[in-house]
């Protein structure tokens, strides 16, 4: 059933859009520490609190480590809890990022993607998110402010679902999305909250009638079993997320999935990419389509849990596949998206050659020409030409 909701086209930066989504979910507690380019998200959220548009209590901590720690304390106390960070801030949180997931606390975080030092760089790449990819959070990547806003709302529903109970992050590219004024549709506050729904906790520190011990010493006899039950939660994310995506599509007309297929049906050549660069690449795909090149694009939206089974079928039967990574795995064999996809496709009968391009580190612009360069290489691979498996894109080397 399609419901009609007020949706007005408006222009906001990605940070503002996510602040709206977070506000509309009516969190009880927000904890944060400033770091570029996340900062303006919390500025906007703090404005909401200062103006009475949000009744959240803010914890303005002295570090990101404490931001995540306070979020853990808050969420374990049965409060809907949000936070946000970028880059080094995420790295400083890292220890507690694992704990939040292990304790099954559905904290919501905006991770405004920025390169990790050193040298220090404030611009976008995905090394922060990718560094924490095994910590147990849901990683939702966004192409633009619209997707960041939508994912900001959707993540509450997925993460807080009783079958899931996992923290979730909305990833959007630092500056490129976070600071760009962009057109998007938003739900009105009421419709957004109706969609997200009230927070339900599974246990809380704040019930003296039912006291709990959270985070005990867990040794060789039980730790593994607890990890088992955590591992069990991730496949369930797909079912829950699909339901939520469908409901959101009914509500807004915007349909999401674990990935987006762009001109992929008959594509021989495929570019796999995530984040804002996907939009830029689509313009180039169109240009090549006009020239008759059967190129398509797969934009990965959910990197954790990784939709391996789904990708296996959608990427089969192609002639050549390019995987673009906006982060490097130092000493590893290819970027994290590449190794993940290659591993997912291993053993499929008609697996196309997979090549990796590392691009955009430290905010290096992903230009239209870079996408063209990749498509040219794919054509070469498909016609039997030699192209290295691992490549850098847009680097003077």
């Amino acid at each position, binding site marked *: 059933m399609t419901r009609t909701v007020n949706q007005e086209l408006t222009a906001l930066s990605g940070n503002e859009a996510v602040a709206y989504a977070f506000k509309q979910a009516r969190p*009880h*507690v927000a*904890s944060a520490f400033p770091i570029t380019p996340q900062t303006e998200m919390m500025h906007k959220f703090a404005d909401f609190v200062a103006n009475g548009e949000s*009744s*959240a*209590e803010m*914890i*303005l*901590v*002295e*570090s990101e*480590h*404490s*931001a995540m*720690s*306070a*979020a*853990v*304390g*808050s*969420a*374990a*106390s*049965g*409060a809907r*809890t949000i936070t946000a960070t970028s880059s080094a801030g995420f790295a400083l949180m890292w*220890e*507690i990022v694992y*704990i939040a997931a292990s*304790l099954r606390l559905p904290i919501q975080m905006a991770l405004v993607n920025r390169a990790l030092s050193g040298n220090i760089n404030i611009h976008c790449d995905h090394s922060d998110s990718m560094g924490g990819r095994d910590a147990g959070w849901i990683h939702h990547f966004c192409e633009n402010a619209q997707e960041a806003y939508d994912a900001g709302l959707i993540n509450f529903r997925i993460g807080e679902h009783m079958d899931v109970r996992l923290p979730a992050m909305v990833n959007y590219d630092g500056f490129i999305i976070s600071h760009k004024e962009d057109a998007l549709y938003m739900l009105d506050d009421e419709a957004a909250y109706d969609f997200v729904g009230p927070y339900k906790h599974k246990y*809380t*520190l*704040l*019930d*003296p*009638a*039912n*006291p*709990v*011990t*959270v*985070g*005990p*010493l*867990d*040794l060789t*006899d*039980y*730790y593994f079993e607890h990890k088992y039950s955590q591992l069990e939660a991730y496949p369930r994310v797909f079912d829950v997320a699909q339901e939520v995506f469908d409901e959101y599509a009914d509500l807004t007309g915007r349909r999401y999935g674990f990935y987006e297929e762009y001109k992929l049906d008959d594509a021989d050549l495929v570019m796999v990419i995530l984040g804002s660069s996907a939009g830029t690449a689509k313009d180039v795909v169109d240009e090549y389509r006009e020239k008759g090149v059967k190129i398509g694009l797969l934009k990965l939206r959910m990197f954790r849990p990784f939709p391996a089974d789904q990708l296996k079928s959608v990427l089969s039967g192609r002639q050549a596949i390019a995987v673009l990574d906006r982060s490097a795995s130092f000493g590893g064999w290819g970027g994290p998206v590449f190794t993940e996809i290659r591993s997912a496709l291993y053993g499929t009968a008609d697996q196309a050659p997979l090549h990796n391009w590392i691009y955009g580190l430290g905010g290096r612009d992903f230009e239209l020409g870079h996408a063209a360069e990749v498509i040219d290489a794919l054509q070469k691979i498909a016609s039997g030409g030699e192209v290295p498996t691992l490549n850098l894109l847009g680097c003077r080397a």
Partner: protein
Amino acid sequence: MALSLKEMVKHEDLLTGGHRACAGCTGANILRQIMLTAGPNTVMGGATGCMEVVTTIYPYTAWKNSFIHSAFENVAATISGAETAYRSLQKHGELPQAAADAERMNFIAFGGDGGTYDIGIQALSGAMERGHRMVYVCYDNGAYMNTGIQRSSATPFGAHTSTAPAGSVKQGKEQDRKDLTEILVAHNIPYVAQTTPFHWKDLATKVEKALSCGGPAFLNILMPCTVGWGFPMERGMQIAKEAVETNFWPLFEVEDGVYKINKKPKERKPIADWMKEQARFRHVFKPGNESMLEHAQQWVDQQWDLLLKRETMTNM
């Protein structure tokens, strides 16, 4: 406030037996005493350390009230999150019934000197400055006992530890202790105090004052460690008593910036009396190390004089 043992004994023991602390652990007793005063409407947070470990070995918990541990350096931040959640849920009318009915919910964070003086000081300082209604309790046993008696910034001068051992060239810890209590006083929070488990009445009074001061409070509680300090396991409370009698660990409190020394020994015992009971100071008494003992005494005297001056100054 129940200040007689006759009354206190009627309170429920919220830290049960069956925890895995060492025989003679004064730390477990400190937590037990705190909970006798705090009562069941308490959210307790523990920093990684001996007391967190021994009270919550899965699938057992010695806590009858709610307890959370997440990491080593962050207990102050974690409990500040719980306290904020409480305020928010209360404001929104969404507290569980038992919490809504409670006259007061208490928020207590505890850590050893490792988790407090050292790795946890940033989160502690932040939480105190933000003004959460919470009590931070440091059980100070003067070394990282949980990981094997490594030196901390709370380790007294001269003490042998596994990372600052007494050897043929070096003679234990070469620095004096950090004065954490004073650092907390500098946060201008409503209540800061030092006590020991031997002084049960003093401890209970201070816990209640800390819980009811309406803002952040800090308690530094000396915790003689039979293993780390090297004294017989039945002697823990006596060692705590003598720490006060020698002025190594004065009992005092600072209420809204005003100092009050709760016990002024009539005759000040030499620090050597206290040190010689503990194996960690054994080498200090060897010939040739006389100057160490002298320094230890000087330091205690100097600290005590400073405390007296602070008391005078803030009561003028």
